[in-house]
Each structure stands twice: as structure tokens, then as C-alpha cells.
């Protein structure tokens, strides 16, 4: 370890990214290779259709939403630093992190992961998962396998259970509360090798 590898010099904003995200130099280089692999036309940025090259993603029922999570509203392309910042949320939680209230919370904390998942539901980013948004996600995950009525009843029950202030929508706090018992670190983390 010690000084950075020479391969790192071809990666834009490498040092800054490592500081922000906590990825090691080896991780950054590999992610850059993957980025360049997806960026077949060498434009230096990715568009939604470039993610289409990933076959396993096309099979995922919420594949489109996940791709959408990489593109902030209004933006049509994503460059490498933004790509890495999104993926940084999936790093395993740092257990030894000092709980310093003055420091901003890292993106891969439990709250950070919850926020990512919340945004998959809350597409219009108004801070609440409305009944309509919930129905959309359910329809995506179930496809044509359930009837409209079954879908409505599933949504009803879900909102009933989670909606504590009875406003027929699920806010972020209610979302967090309903997932208290879930081991989010395990389920929303990707272990990067070496």
C-alpha cells in the first residue's frame, strides 16, 4: 500500500472519490474499468441505454427504476464520479465509524441505504410514497401474475401497516420505522473484493 498506483492516474477525480466514498484504489480502478466497459462509445459518460448491455439487469423487474437511480432528475447522462457515488451506498456499513455529529453521515450508513430504497418507491421525490406510487412498484414486481383487485388489497394492507399518521402515504420516517427489524446492512450491501 502507500502511494497510489499508476493505473489510478487515468481515473478522473480519483483521490477525491476515495476520500468521499471510502473505496480503495483497487476498487476505484476496477469500477473505472467497468464504467469504460459499459461506455462502449467512449463518451466518458453513460446513458440509460448503456445499462441495457447488462443482461441480468434486463431480467430484473425493477431494473428500470434502478437505472433511473443513477440519473438525477433532469439529467440524461452520468459521469464516472456520480456513478461511483451511487455505488458507494452499497458498501458495507463501517462498524468502527466514530459517531461524530459534526461530520456528515457517510452515504453507506443504514440511513443512506434506506434513503436509496425509499427513492426507488418515491419516484416524484416529494418525500412520501403515495398509494399510486406503491401500486406502480407492486405492478412492476408482480407483472401480470396478480389481478388488479389483489394488487389493490396488497397495497391497502401495506399502507395500513406502515402509515402511522393516517395520511394515506408513507413518509421516510414511517418507512424507516417499518424496517426497524430488517438487517439492512446485510441485505443492501455488496462486498467488494480486495
Amino acid at each position: 500500500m502507500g502511494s497510489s498506483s499508476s493505473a489510478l492516474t487515468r481515473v478522473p477525480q480519483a483521490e477525491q472519490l476515495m476520500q468521499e466514498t471510502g473505496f480503495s484504489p483497487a476498487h476505484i480502478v476496477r469500477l473505472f474499468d467497468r464504467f469504460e466497459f459499459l461506455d462502449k462509445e467512449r463518451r466518458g459518460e453513460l446513458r440509460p441505454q448503456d445499462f441495457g448491455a447488462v443482461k441480468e439487469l434486463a431480467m430484473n423487474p425493477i431494473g428500470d427504476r434502478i437505472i433511473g437511480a443513477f440519473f438525477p432528475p433532469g439529467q440524461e447522462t452520468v459521469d464516472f464520479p456520480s456513478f461511483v457515488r451511487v455505488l458507494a451506498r452499497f458498501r458495507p456499513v463501517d462498524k468502527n465509524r466514530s459517531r461524530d455529529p459534526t461530520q456528515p453521515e457517510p452515504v453507506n450508513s443504514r440511513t443512506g441505504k434506506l434513503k436509496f430504497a425509499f427513492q426507488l418507491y418515491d419516484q416524484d421525490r416529494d418525500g412520501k410514497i403515495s398509494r399510486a406510487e406503491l401500486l406502480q412498484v407492486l405492478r412492476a414486481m408482480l407483472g401480470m401474475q396478480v389481478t388488479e383487485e389483489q394488487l389493490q388489497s396488497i397495497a391497502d394492507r401495506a399502507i395500513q401497516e406502515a402509515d402511522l399518521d393516517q395520511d394515506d402515504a408513507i413518509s421516510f420516517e414511517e418507512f424507516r420505522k417499518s424496517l426497524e427489524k430488517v438487517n439492512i446492512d446485510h441485505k443492501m450491501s455488496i462486498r467488494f473484493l480486495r
Partner: protein
Amino acid sequence: MAWFVFPVDNLLCMCLCICVSAWFTLLLVFIIVPAVLGVSFGIRRLYMKTLLKIFEWATLRMERGAKEKNQHLYKPYSNGIIAKEPPSSLEQEIQELRGPASTLRSEPEFEMADIFYFCRRGVESIVDDEVTKRFSAQELESWNLLTRSNYNFRHISLRLSVLWGLGVLIRYGLLLPLRVTLAVTGIGLLLVLTTVVGFLPSGELRTYLSEKVHLMCYRICVRALTAIITYHNRENKPKNGGICVANHTTPIDVIILANDGCYSMVGQVHGGLMGMVQRAMVRSSPHIWFERSEVKDRHLVAKRLGDHVADKTKQPILIFPEGTCINNTSVMMFKKGSFEIGCTVYPVAIKYDPRFGDAFWNSSKFGMVSYLLRMMSSWAIVCSVWYLPPMNRQEGEDAVQFANRVKAAIATQGGLVDLLWDGGLKRAKVKDALKEEQQKLYSKVLVGDQEDQREDKPVEDEKPKDDESGPDSAEGQ
């Protein structure tokens, strides 16, 4: 000044003549005659051992160079960037997400946490997926003195550069012309001799001669590529009236296998040189060439293949069921057509050693001619061929299951990853059916098995009938 130029000219001519004749004599003695007779001097294996030693030395030098500069050597991670959990089913994962309290309920139950499963799978596949990396060349751990597989060129010392330069000279100046000459000789002989044999009347003599001719020409072609092949388990070699299936990495696979036995090839009719070769081959032994229009007609294809295997005097058919070239790290879905015919299947596993030259044909990057040039300017093509024991379709097994069984056997023997994905994904989009599979599986977790529900409510039939349309084939887990 005429009198000055003339002797020099003469001298030059003489030198040239001597060189060329020496060249051709060497070629004949050391390469063509052994190829014709089927013997080997062992030169190629010696060459291979020497090269290996040089590569190891080169990699050590680069590591030393990198250490001196206090930097890291970039080692491509051929096994993947992320640690994937052992594959468990969708049901298992979702139950885990929900915790031990939830068990099978009678009412459909959705939890907000369910989305985590799909989310993580999605992001994992963005970072590293099993399929897309099979369609590009495998990355090497050590450098083999070819620029095309080098990632650490900042660490090359002067000595290494000299070695590399020498390598370029040898490969392009010596080996490439040699190989091109051999290839031309091989193909030319094939054309001429098969046509000659084709004039003989059908019978034992013709079959015998045609075998010899084919083997001889393929041996020359193998030397044209400097292919060093090790055949294992030759007692399992395919016999007449069977089909030989193998994993597909490159068009050269055909030459590798045909070097050791006679097969009937199956393929589309081409134009140009390939077409000429095809027509010549067909004159002396039965190959199966399809017109472009006939390829779509599956019944016609099956009938012709069936007729061929029914005739026990005809050679075994050679088929590559993947349908496309894969980069030799995995075996992808076998198309079931050849497994429906109902004859004995002889599986063959081919594994290339990428250190001497990557044999994979990336057809989206290179055309046929540039691919052949790359092949002929690498060091060598080293591969192992395993003949596996013959397999037959068992009772109660359908073609797809049989195909998967054969595929698993080939993957195990060759040390390749066995994938369920269709190689056609190289060019095509993922079918919606795969996404529907995932949706079906998830809905089962929520709503329970559709059959159970049906028993409970015999009167209502709102559920769509196409849930039970036959057994699911190859679940894409």
C-alpha cells in the same frame, strides 16, 4: 555503369535463390512431410516450454520494476469484482428479509423490505454480471509479450522492451510468413486432392482415401497455426452414426477436432473461398451444407441430420450447440435441436490456454481476416481436448434436460463455468419471458401456489389460465 551492377545483381539473385530454396526445403522436411505422414518431431512442445519460461521471467521483471517505483502492478481480476453470495432462491431470500416471524400465510402479504432483494441483485449485476464478460477476451495474470494483452506498459524496463521487440520481429518476420505459406499449401492441397478423390466411384477405396486426404490437410493447417493440441481419452472418440458436440470458442475448433478424426461438418453455404472449399469437401465425403433459406426450417434440418446418422457408413456429425463463440471461460445454453434426433451423443470439451495467444473470436470487434492474422501472429495456440464417454437420452428425459446434462459434463471436464444463459444474448435483447419468470417467482411468495388457491375456491376462476402452461424450462436463477 553496367559492368559494376551486373555481378552484384547476379550475386543478389543467387543469394535470394539459395535462401528461398533453403526455406522451402526446411519447410518440407520439418513440417509438411511429418504432417503428411502424421508424425511429429516434438519441436512445437519444446518451443512451448521455452516460451513459458520467458513469460515467467518477463512477469517477474515487471513486478520487480513496479516494486522499485513503489507502485502496484495492475492485476486483472478474472474472477469478478464482488463477492457473490451462494445462489439461493428468490423465496429463501425474501423469507430471510422478512425475518423468522413470517411464515406462509393464507392472505397475500407484501413487505416494504421485499424491494431490497431486487435492488441488490440489480446493482450487483451493474457492477459485475455473469453474462456480458463472456463475450470479451479473457484477461491474463501474467504478460505474454504481446501488446494486445498488456496493461502495465509503464513498468517495462529496457531489457523487457528489447525482448518484446525481438518477439515482434520473430512473430511478424519469421512466424507469420511461415504460417501463411503453410495455410495456403494446406488449403490448396485440400481443394485439389478432394476434387481428385471425388472422381473415384463410391466405395471403400474412396472413403479410405478421402479420410487420409482430409487428415493430412488438417494436419498442415494445424501446423499453420502452430497449434499444440493434447488429446485425452481417445478411446471415447466419436463413432459413425453419432453426433459430436463441443463447446465453441472460435472457428478454429473445427480444425482442432478434425485433426484427429473425420467428421461431417454442418453449416451454411458461403460464397467466395469458403464456398469453394465447401464444394470441394462435399465431393469426396458427405458434409451437410444448408442454403440460407433452409436454415430457418427446423424440420428440414432435423430430417437431414437424422438421415445422416441413420446411415452407419457415414462419419459422425460435428455440431456446436451454443450457436456462437464464447470466450472459453464458460459454457452457455445448448440449443436443443441436435439433442432431439435421438442418436448417441459424443461430448467433447475444448479448453484453450490463453497464455500463448487468445483463440476467442470476438466477432463484434474483429472480422475473419483480421482474426486469422492475429492468430497467426501470436505465439501459438495451445489447447486440450477431452473426449467424454458417449451419452444417450434417458427414459423420461426431454431434449432440454438431456442438453443440460451434456453441457454440465463438458463444463466439468473442461473446468468451465456452466451457465444457463443463451449465447444468443451476444446480439439479442433479453427475452421478456425471463423477467416474467422473476415476477412469477415473487408472486408465488406473496400469493402462494396457484394450485392451492384453486382448490380452496373452486367457483371463482378469475386467475389467468396461462399460469400452468407446461413445466417451466430452465429457470434463470
